[in-house]
């Protein structure tokens, strides 16, 4: 069927992201392994290299959090935890703080360079040198671990 062909996945508009939807992001052990308190989400979980297009997240419309984990290598909770952000909370945070952040649906339609097919893939644009401290601090406050997908700290 045409709809199942990844190459035919349409790019959706920001308005299609409903407030009740969630963003999921895999957080690797090197970002949290030294923190004793894993109940907190730290600002350093949300940053990208300058060369990156935007902060990669998965959209709950097309992805379950377990699928986000399964796309990572290795796909286990000793290495990755899955964090979630409510889209409505994100929009509120952007509005209240007057952040210049935007959402772009960016489905990955071909598997190249370890990237797996991913219809839910989304980019959050606008985190940059000028705003990264406040933006990351505020986003960390509206983020939490997905139930059952909090990372496991090795003893």
């Amino acid at each position, binding site marked *: 069927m045409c709809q199942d062909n990844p190459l035919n996945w349409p790019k959706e508009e920001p308005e299609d992201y409903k407030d009740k939807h969630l963003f999921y992001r*895999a957080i*690797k052990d*090197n*970002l949290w392994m*030294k*923190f004793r308190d894993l109940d*907190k989400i*730290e*600002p*350093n979980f949300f*940053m*990208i*290299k*300058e060369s*990156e297009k935007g902060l*990669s997240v998965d959209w709950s419309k097309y992805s379950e959090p377990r699928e986000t984990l399964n796309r*990572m*290598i290795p796909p286990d909770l000793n290495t*990755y935890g899955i964090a979630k952000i409510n889209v409505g909370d994100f929009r509120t945070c952007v509005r209240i703080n007057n952040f210049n952040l935007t959402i772009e649906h960016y489905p990955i339609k071909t598997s190249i360079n370890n990237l797996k097919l991913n219809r839910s893939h989304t980019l959050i644009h606008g985190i940059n*040198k*000028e705003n*990264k*401290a*406040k933006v*990351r*601090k505020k986003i960390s406050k509206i983020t939490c671990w997905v139930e059952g997908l909090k990372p496991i700290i090795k003893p």
Partner: protein
Amino acid sequence: MSEFKQKLDKIDQKYKTPYSTWKTIGEKPEWREYDLNFIRELIEHIKIDKQDNLKTLIEESKDYILTLPQNWDGYDADTIEINVLNRATILLKNVCSDLWKKTYEIPLPIIAPVPDGSIDINWENEKFELLINVPKNENDLTHLYGEHIHHPEHEIDIRSPSSVVKASLLDWFELIYNISF
């Protein structure tokens, strides 16, 4: 018994002179009067303890951060260069040194690597939250974002050259702690 408690006991025994007395004030707990030298020595030990703890934090952070490999975050993060971490830790030591001269309520922060090659120094406690981002490129500005809990008017969100960051920070702490440096 902790090392600090051992030090405390030693000072206590040293100063058990006729000038150190116990007093009972009504039903309140006993109060001990110490002479000024005791207080001074106690303060020095507290300061040294905090300095030791800071030194340990910095050494542990270096061991961990400088050994992070390429792609350490799973999204192709670069490794952290030693000069970036050195700039961050020097700033932290200088700020803590000045703060601890005036107040003992500043806890140790978290030193964290950031995927763009910068370093975060992050404080979160009941009184304030402060995030300092030391950039990868030393010619870039250092970003400070801070909140004084229950005082939104004291929010700080600035980017400063490294030469004036410490002064900006001390100004902010002076504001939220209502102290003078």
